[in-house]
């Protein structure tokens, strides 16, 4: 157990590519935590998807021993947090597990949107924040301008900002000193009943579920029995340890410390981020505030491109679900797409990450259908149905009314883009709740239907603000509205996987946009194809994809036979990958692309 005074817990807040991972690598290296020969770039981002997308999905942590210039030995715990709105809850828990943050800004670029979203999380968690200006070795570096911008935009003092080149190592020592001298030591009572926060958890093939915790009060020792206060499950602790960044077993964790435990927990589902860990006996009775059970808010269908891979898909989904409490699934059948799963996610990034992992780690090609939210359908006979899939919408004559989930969205945006943001929110049926200014930045709060946000709102927001907006939301309950199911008919056949719920007033507009999109997405066939949007039996928008007029090879002689045969085989394979609806082949990407709205 380390003396509280000699512990510093911190996170690093940075925009993608501003050098967070390189800085973390340098801190680890400078303190000798990892031997030179074991160094590899971006020690903390372990998943391929994390490295590629430059995002962190799971919280990673590393414990660094550092003897400061004052001659005293410190333990520094770095938590690397996820940085996306889908994982806002996970980020908030990670932030609550540390007392300070390094705010890393690329001195050639300046403050960007993601920096803002995360720095406000840090401010929310009452962090002490140390600004770090990175990449000062580059000629385009402009520390004065960027420091000024940090003060203007974020409103924190940047006069003492540390100038760093994570690449050359310049300023790394100063950063370590600042962590020791400027960040507060944690507080806690070693003699109080055990109270620890469950920061994150994941599955390890050898050790079972690994639970990352921050001890607030009390002490946790190997062999003790613990209780998860929200799930009320009890486990004997097998191992206790810290990450350096590889695992190192220790005997005890005390207040202020960050480490992990294993306790023969079989599924990650049994551990909930934000839960309070205490002793089975003589435990605390005060759970930590702020716990929220993970609740999927976005649903979509995942179908194997090759129907023969359904069992493999089932297997991969079960395995992923073991490791992700926020991901849900149930079997679904579609007339068009065959057997698949209706899956629930925290948001669109979460959806994309899971989809990518199934495709890559399990090598299954997927068709993803339109994301949807959960509607409450009130039937005339008094029954209430939770509708996860528009295709299951009951007969309208039996429906009394529908309710849809709403969110409270907070958007921070430089004022030159404010007009575009307001228009976007209005277009998505938003109701403005608040509009305030902080310097040259506006903060707008909107009440928005979740279904208008889940799909491409974040992409549109980034695009209209050139990436300078930050966005966060919370669920605000359900409200009745005039919602209808819109069906899409291709060549007079309904395509169930393209059905969506829309507001009656916007149905024509959405329907028109969708049929126009589909006209571009579906390749020309040898016959003309009507594409229609309909509500019930009424067609509200129609386009006609005209017949292909020309597709013939001008020259084909003896020397071309082999090549043209291969080309034909390739084209046939491409055609096979499409989905057949009656006589029409629809490419897989159409199921998602058709819904994207360009304005």
């Amino acid at each position, binding site marked *: 157990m380390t003396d509280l005074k000699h512990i510093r817990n911190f996170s690093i807040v940075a925009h993608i590519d501003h050098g967070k991972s390189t800085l973390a690598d340098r801190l680890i290296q400078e303190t000798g935590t990892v031997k030179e020969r074991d160094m590899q770039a971006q020690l903390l981002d372990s998943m391929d998807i994390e490295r590629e997308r430059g995002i962190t999905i799971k919280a990673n942590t590393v414990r660094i021993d550092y003897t400061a210039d004052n001659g005293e030995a410190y333990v520094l715990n770095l938590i690397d947090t996820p940085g996306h709105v889908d994982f806002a809850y996970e980020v908030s828990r990670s932030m609550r597990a540390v007392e300070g943050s390094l705010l890393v800004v690329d001195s050639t670029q300046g403050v960007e949107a993601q920096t803002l979203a995360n720095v406000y999380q840090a401010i929310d968690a009452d962090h002490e924040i140390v600004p770090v200006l990175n990449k000062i070795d580059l000629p385009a570096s402009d520390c004065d301008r960027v420091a000024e911008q940090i003060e203007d935009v974020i409103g924190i003092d940047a006069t003492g900002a540390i100038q760093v080149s994570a690449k050359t190592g310049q300023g790394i020592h100063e950063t370590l000193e600042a962590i020791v001298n400027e960040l507060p030591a944690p507080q806690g009572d070693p003699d109080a009943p055990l109270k620890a926060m469950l920061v994150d958890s994941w599955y390890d093939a050898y050790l079972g579920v690994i639970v990352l915790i921050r001890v607030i009060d009390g002490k946790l020792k190997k062999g003790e029995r613990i209780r998860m206060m929200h799930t009320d499950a009890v486990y004997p602790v097998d191992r206790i340890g810290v990450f350096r960044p590889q695992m190192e077993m220790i005997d005890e964790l005390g207040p202020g410390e960050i480490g992990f435990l294993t306790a023969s927990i079989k599924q990650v589902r049994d551990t909930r981020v934000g839960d309070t860990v205490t002793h089975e006996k003589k435990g605390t009775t005060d759970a930590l505030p702020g716990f929220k059970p993970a609740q999927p808010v976005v649903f979509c269908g995942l179908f194997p491109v090759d129907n023969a891979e359904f069992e493999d898909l089932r297997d991969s989904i079960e395995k992923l679900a073991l490791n992700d409490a926020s991901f849900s699934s149930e079997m679904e059948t579609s007339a068009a797409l065959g057997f698949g799963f209706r899956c629930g996610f925290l948001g669109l990034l979460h959806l994309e990450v899971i989809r990518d992992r199934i495709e890559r780690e399990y090598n299954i090609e997927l068709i993803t259908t339109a994301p949807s939210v959960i509607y409450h359908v009130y039937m005339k006979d008094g029954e209430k149905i939770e509708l996860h899939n528009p295709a299951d919408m009951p007969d309208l004559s039996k429906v009394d009314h529908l309710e849809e989930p709403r969110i409270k969205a907070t958007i921070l945006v430089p004022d030159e883009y404010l007009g575009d943001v307001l228009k976007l929110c209005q277009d998505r049926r938003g109701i403005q709740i608040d509009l305030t200014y902080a310097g040259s930045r506006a903060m707008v709060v909107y009440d928005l239907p979740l279904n208008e946000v889940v799909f491409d709102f974040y992409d549109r927001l980034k695009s209209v603000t050139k990436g300078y907006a930050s966005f966060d939301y919370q669920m605000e309950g359900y409200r009745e509205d005039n919602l209808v199911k819109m069906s899409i008919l291709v060549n007079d056949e309904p395509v169930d996987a393209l059905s969506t719920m829309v507001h009656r007033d916007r149905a024509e507009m959405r329907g028109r946009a969708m049929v126009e999109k589909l006209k571009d997405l579906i390749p020309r066939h*040898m016959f003309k194809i009507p594409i229609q949007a309909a509500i019930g039996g009424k067609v509200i928008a129609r386009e006609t994809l005209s017949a292909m007029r020309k597709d*013939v090879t*001008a020259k084909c002689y*003896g020397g071309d036979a*082999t090549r043209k*045969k291969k080309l*034909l085989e390739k084209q046939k394979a491409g055609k096979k990958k499409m989905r057949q609806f009656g*006589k029409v082949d629809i490419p897989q990407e159409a199921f998602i692309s058709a819904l994207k709205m360009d304005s």
Partner: protein
Amino acid sequence: MPENWQEAGFGLYLHWPFCAAKCPYCDFNSHVSSSIDQDAWQAAYLSEIDRYAALTPGRVLDSVYFGGGTPSLMRPDVVSALLDRVASHWTLANDVEITLEANPTSIEAANFAGYRAGGVNRVSIGVQALNDEDLRRLGRMHSMEEAKQALILAKTTFERVNFDLIYARQDQSLDAWRAELTQALAMEPDHLSLYQLTIEPGTAFGDRFAAGGLHGLPGDDLSVDQFFLTQELCEKAGLPAYEVSNHAKPGQESRHNLVYWRGGDWIGIGPGAHGRLTLGGSRIGTETELNPLKWLANPAQNIRETLALDEQATEYLLMGLRLQEGIDLLRLRTRYGVTLKDSKIKDLLELSLIEIEGDILKTSREGRPVLNAILRELVPD
């Protein structure tokens, strides 16, 4: 059952890989070289002719075709020596067709008499366009006037003459093509190859197109209108289409190319040449080294693969449906063991894209411009 060569003909293709310049639309295996040792090439071709003759004893040869590249850059004595060797190995059909591809520059036309003396009885001339501006844009080395003179000379020298034109060119209107084709037909060729310009990857045009250049290419609608106009004008002039891009007076069809389209046997000699031979009951596909100097160093080294029945069927459909005469469903069943799906045939019949008479299946007028799409439906998985 008769063998393929007996049923659909037997031909010999010789590839001459050199050109005076590389045309920007051409994706054939052609090279520009300043020094060509024609004696060495002659020796290599002769050794290959000998080798193939030993594999195919007792056959009757229907056609010899010098393609390229630009075979009219070959010395007439080389052509003559090769044809003498061919005649010493195989029995030539009474109506044997011996074609040489030629460019209509004055230098090359000067060789015509020599080729004729060596045994060539048909030339195929790469005219490509009938105005100097477009000839320049297509990277051709000859002028319109040279082309006319070469054609006149060819007609008096050879029994049969074909010439090629490329249409659906940049900025070419329907009326401009009508005028050009009318002018071409007035020259009274007995065979015309009329190709729509195709932008192939790996060519100069392909690069320009990929970089956003090459403006004024016709869209699908105009090129289809041009295609139908071509059918109409040629038919009126007595040269109906017998293949997607080939038109001939009845009886003047290219016998050599019919071997390809009807699924006959042919030997392919020269860099990058492909062949199809029925040997010992198996159908063999052959393919040679593309690089001219590597081929020359070792002409006998080639890739041979046995084609499975379904591959043979695919090739038969792919090649055969290009012909107006269509394919024989009976041959498809008996020779290759393949039956086409009734549902696919029914769909295509309903769309009036194909026609069936007895066992013959062919494309309709509307079906011809979408042949690739028809093949994607018909060719079994």
